C-alpha cells in the first residue's frame, strides 16, 4: 500500500499534462457530454412512448412509417446520421436564410437532433417489445372489467411494460453515453473532444485517454446505480418473498 502511494506521488510529481488548463477542458467536456446525453435521452424518451404505442397499432398507415423510421435509424451508424445532419443539410439550397439555420448553425443542436432521433428509435423498439409482451390474461381481465382501450393502456399495459423495459432501457442509456463520444467530430468539445485536444497538445495518448476513460467509467457507474435502484423499487413484486 505504501509502495502504491509512493508510486502514485511519483507519478503526479513530474506530471505536466494535468494542469489547471487541461482539467478545465475536461470539466467543460464533462458538462457538455452530460448535457448532450441527458437532453437527448429525455426528449427521446418523450418521443418514444407515443411512437411505441402507435407502432403496435393495427392500422398499416400508422404502423409502417414508424417501423420505417426505427429501421432507418437503427440500421445506419450514428456517425453517418450525425454527418448527414451536420454537414449534409448545408447542401440544401438557401437553408442559411431560414430560421432552421439558427438551430443548425451551432454544432450542439445538430448533434442533439441526431442523438435524440437515434435513441428515440431504439427506445421505441424496446418499449414496443415490452408492450407486445404483456400477458394475454391481463388484457382479457381488463376487457372483462369493461375498460376502454385508453384506460387499459394507461392502467394495465404501460405500467407493466415500463417495468419490463427498464433493464433494456438502462443499457440503451449507457450505450448512448458511449455513442456521444463521436460528438467531437463535429467540433463539439465533449469529454472525448477534450481528450483529443490534450492528446494533440502533449502527445500523451495514454494519459489523455486513460483519464477520460476513467471519467466515462464514473458516469457509467452512476447510471448503473440509478437503474439498479429503480429496478429494486419498481420490480420489487417480482422478487422472491423472503
Amino acid at each position, binding site marked *: 500500500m505504501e509502495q502504491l502511494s509512493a508510486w502514485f506521488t511519483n507519478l503526479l510529481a513530474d506530471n505536466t499534462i494535468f494542469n489547471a488548463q487541461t482539467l478545465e477542458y475536461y470539466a467543460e467536456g464533462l458538462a457538455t457530454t452530460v448535457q448532450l446525453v441527458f437532453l437527448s435521452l429525455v426528449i427521446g424518451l418523450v418521443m418514444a412512448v407515443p411512437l411505441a404505442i402507435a407502432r403496435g397499432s393495427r392500422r398499416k398507415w400508422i404502423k409502417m412509417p414508424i417501423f420505417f423510421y426505427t429501421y432507418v435509424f437503427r440500421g445506419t451508424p450514428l456517425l453517418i446520421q450525425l454527418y448527414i445532419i451536420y*454537414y449534409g443539410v*448545408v447542401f440544401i439550397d438557401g437553408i442559411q436564410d431560414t430560421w432552421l439555420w439558427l438551430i443548425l448553425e451551432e454544432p450542439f443542436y445538430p448533434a442533439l437532433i441526431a442523438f435524440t432521433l437515434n435513441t428515440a428509435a431504439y427506445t421505441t423498439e424496446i418499449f414496443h417489445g415490452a408492450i407486445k409482451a404483456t400477458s394475454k390474461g391481463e388484457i382479457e381481465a381488463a376487457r372483462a372489467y369493461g375498460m376502454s382501450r385508453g384506460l387499459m393502456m394507461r392502467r394495465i399495459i404501460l405500467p407493466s411494460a415500463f417495468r419490463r423495459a427498464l433493464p433494456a432501457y438502462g443499457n440503451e442509456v449507457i450505450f448512448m453515453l458511449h455513442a456521444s463520444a463521436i460528438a467531437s467530430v463535429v*467540433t463539439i468539445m465533449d469529454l472525448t473532444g477534450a481528450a*483529443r*485536444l490534450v492528446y494533440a*497538445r502533449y502527445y500523451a495518448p495514454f494519459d489523455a485517454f486513460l483519464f477520460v476513460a476513467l471519467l466515462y467509467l464514473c458516469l457509467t457507474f452512476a447510471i448503473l446505480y440509478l437503474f439498479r435502484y429503480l429496478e429494486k423499487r419498481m420490480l420489487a413484486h417480482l422478487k422472491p418473498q423472503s
Partner: protein
Amino acid sequence: MNKLLTVTLLSAALIAGTAQARDYDTVRFGVDVPYEPMEYRTPEGELTGFDIELGNALCAEMGIECEWIVQGWDGIIPGLMSRKYDAIMSSMTINEERREQVLFSDPYFTPPSAWFVPSDSNIDMPAKETLEGKNIGVQRGTLQDNYVSDMYGDVADINRYATADDMVLDMEAGRLDAVFLDFPVGKSTLLDSEDGNYKVVGSMITEPKSYFGDGFGIAFRKRDEDLASKFNEALATLKENGTYDQIFNKYFSNRK
C-alpha cells in the same frame, strides 16, 4: 570476422580522413516530388516549384550549375551520404535528429500560415478585438491549432476539425467566421476553389519560432562546410536584392 570488421573500419576511417572538401562546379540536389507548391512537375513534366526556382537562383548567384535528382523521401538522407547528390533541397524541416546526420544551411523558408475569411467579412486584421466572439476553424493538433488556442483562445470560439476538408465545408456552410490554415492548403481549397469567395487578411504568419519551427534548410554532408557557407552567402544576397521575394511572391502571394 572481427579482423574483417577492424580492417573495414580502419579503411573507412582512412578514406574519411583523406577525403578533402572539394570545390563544386556542379551541385546535384536531391528532391522528393511532388510536394506542391514547393516541388512538383508541370503538365509538361518539367520540375518546378519554390525549392527548384530558389535552388536554381542560388546556383546562378554562385556561378555554378544545378542538377536535380528525384529521390523518394525515406531514402533522401542515405542518398546524400552515398553521394548520389551533394545536397538536399526538398522542404526539409531543420531539427535536432537530422542535424546529427547532416549539415543544414540557414533556414531559407518557413511554411507560412494565413487567415482566410469570406470576401464580405468585416474582419480586416486578425487581432483580439476583431476576432472577439468569432468562430475560428483550425485543424486539430496542428501548430496552427496551438497558435490560435494560445493567442485567441480566451476571446474567440475555436472549432477544431479532424481534416482540412471538414473545415472548408463548414466555412462554405457559413458556420465559421475565419480559418487559420497552412497557406498553400488554404490557397488550393479556399482561394482557388470554383465558387469560393474568400480572401486572406493580414500577412503571412511564420513567427514565433516556438510555434512555427525553424523552417526548411538545405542539407549538406557534414564535411561540406565551405559549400554550405557559400549557399548561405548566396541566400543572403538573394534576400537583399529582391530575387527571393520575387520567387516567394510567385508561389505564396495572397492574390488569386
